[in-house]
């Protein structure tokens, strides 16, 4: 049978990706340019017996998905920068309580209401450092409609596998444009569900690390009964202030994402013509599309340019960026903000190569020409 093909907006593709991943709960609050995700979910979820709720605000939306996830659902919310800001306290909660859930951020300009219908990439640091406290973060950044579908599936997989909130960031351009989507057949993309406890209920501890850095998670309303809190907790889930326990838990929660093995599993990059590149453009999301155009153009002009596109923004692809820094004469970061990821790149490449930055925040996308000009200037 031929695969289902459709011309879909990025936001619609996101909703379909979530459904493919088995999402059965959506709690949201409308905000441009993300609203189509909620609109599609409100129509599709009841068809598969799932639940959609429009909450009273983004805080409530975030709370509802954590609650639903603890009751065993695969839960999603979608919003834009200001909404993520409202969710931040509870994103911290989901980090410490280790509750799988997926947060979509369709980025606009800003701060505040900014340019609701214009694109931006100014929430990439918010995705890393927006909430309080020490914590690891996973954030993915697709750049096409098909990739929004598959990265939304991957976001659910990572959330379930690592028991934590995962953010997917794309900007208004990809969120609203339409491209052909080939729907993967069931089973074609991997779908991961959280590890359920294997011990009998009376032995279950929700943060039992004898199973590794990611403890199995039971569901409310099953044979297992447990306590969840936002306080620092011991293995049994109950609050503790014992110094060594608090320290060990905090470190484990970072290690489960930033440990070498986890990094290798979570990180995903695309490289285009980097093998012999003398200059590499570091770009992500829709900006990477302009950058690819720029690479082709630069190559035609005899400049050995390449593109490094992190699809996983967090954890940051430290190893590969460091290697490229050693290889190239210059790296040019292109982003639709006034310079955010460039600080990460700078931290990693240090002085191994020259570093350029091209930015744009006026509501129009960065054009290939702007990137080309910056590459030439840096070289």
């Amino acid at each position, binding site marked *: 049978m031929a695969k289902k093909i459709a011309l879909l907006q990025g936001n619609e593709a996101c909703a379909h990706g979530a459904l493919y991943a088995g999402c059965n*709960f959506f*709690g949201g609050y409308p905000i441009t340019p993300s609203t189509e995700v909620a609109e599609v979910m409100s129509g599709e979820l*009841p*068809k598969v*017996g799932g*639940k959609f*709720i429009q*909450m*009273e*605000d983004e*805080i*409530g*939306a975030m*709370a*509802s*998905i*954590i*609650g*639903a*996830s*603890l*009751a*065993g*659902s695969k*839960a999603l919310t979608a919003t834009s920068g200001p909404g993520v800001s409202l969710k931040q*306290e*509870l994103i911290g*909660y989901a980090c410490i309580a280790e509750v799988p859930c997926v947060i979509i951020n369709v980025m606009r300009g800003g701060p505040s209401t900014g340019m609701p219908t214009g694109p931006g990439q100014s929430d990439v640091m918010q995705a890393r450092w927006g909430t309080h406290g020490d914590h690891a973060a996973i954030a993915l950044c697709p750049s096409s409609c098909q990739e929004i579908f598959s990265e939304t599936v991957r976001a659910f997989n990572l959330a379930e596998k690592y028991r934590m909130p995962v953010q997917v960031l794309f900007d208004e351009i990809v969120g609203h444009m339409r491209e052909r989507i080939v729907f993967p057949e069931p089973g074609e993309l991997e779908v991961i569900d959280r590890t359920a406890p294997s011990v009998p209920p009376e032995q279950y501890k929700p943060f039992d690390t004898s199973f590794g850095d990611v403890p199995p998670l039971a569901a*409310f*309303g*099953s*044979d*297992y*009964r*447990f*306590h*969840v*809190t*936002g*306080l620092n907790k011991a293995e049994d889930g*109950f*609050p503790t202030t014992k110094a060594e326990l608090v320290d060990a838990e905090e470190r484990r929660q970072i290690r489960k994402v930033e440990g070498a093995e986890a990094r290798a599993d979570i990180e995903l990059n695309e490289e285009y013509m980097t093998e012999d590149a003398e200059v590499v453009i570091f770009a992500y999301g829709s900006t990477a599309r302009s950058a690819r155009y720029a690479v082709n153009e630069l190559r035609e002009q005899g400049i050995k340019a390449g593109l490094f596109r992190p699809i996983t923004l967090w954890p940051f692809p430290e190893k590969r960026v460091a290697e490229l820094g050693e290889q190239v004469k210059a790296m040019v970061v292109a982003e639709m903000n006034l310079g955010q990821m460039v600080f990460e790149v700078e931290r990693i490449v240090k002085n191994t190569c020259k570093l350029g930055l091209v930015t744009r925040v006026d509501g129009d996308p960065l054009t290939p020409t702007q990137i080309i000009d910056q590459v030439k200037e840096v070289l």
Partner: protein
Amino acid sequence: MAYDYEKSIRPGKLPHIWCPGCGHGIVMKGLIRAMDTCGLEKNNTAIVSGIGCASRMPGYLDFNTLHTAHGRAAAFATGVKMAKPEMTVICCGGDGDGAAIGGNHFIHACRRNIDMTYVLLNNYIYGMTGGQFSSSTPPGHLASTTPYGNPDPAFDLAKLAIGAGATFVARTTAFHATQIDKLIVEGIKHKGMAVIEILDDCPTTYGRRNKFRSVVDMMKRLKDIAVPVTAAAKMTPEQLEGKTLTGVLHKEDRPEYCENYAKIIARVQGA
């Protein structure tokens, strides 16, 4: 024979954190008896709270328990209930938690008429943070942030719940211990959003600053201000001055949120 609370308490989790004379313990005992009377199955019950002294309650109770963030209990609970409507969901928490920072979630849970029982412990103060005034501190009273007397008017929490659409609203006090379980039982059995406001005391941060010399004084006040709705009907406005109505204040039947959503699913899937 004395009532056995142990069977509902998590082994090893006591002593609780509450101060001597705090009303929260009395309410917890009432909640335990009420859940027992209703025959709630532990695995099929979730108790959700926010942050505050009152919100520490779930940690002691041997059920599925969710101690969330300040003010968010009703919203977390909405997610749990929507995901598993077959579960009994109970919220508990303080006046600051439920009606100030969490007021928006609270009123919208009432409006939706989602099937949960919200036990609102109103001790007129932010106890946990040391006695700052809350949205239910009476005007003129002293709190750590109202050194010249509280300039703010106070919420009538039961009225707020009724106005927002809760379909069962009742009130009692920590002094009226046996009425606590009676009303919570009615709340649990009610299909829809049930709010039980329990006037409570915080000797440590509220009583101390205001003219209550002892816990007994505070309890006496709760006893004095409470007037059952039935009795109030025969009283003059002058007699009711400074009093608070107790008992079942409001009860109506209105479609419940999860049932409504289940109908949507059935309709969509049938089509």
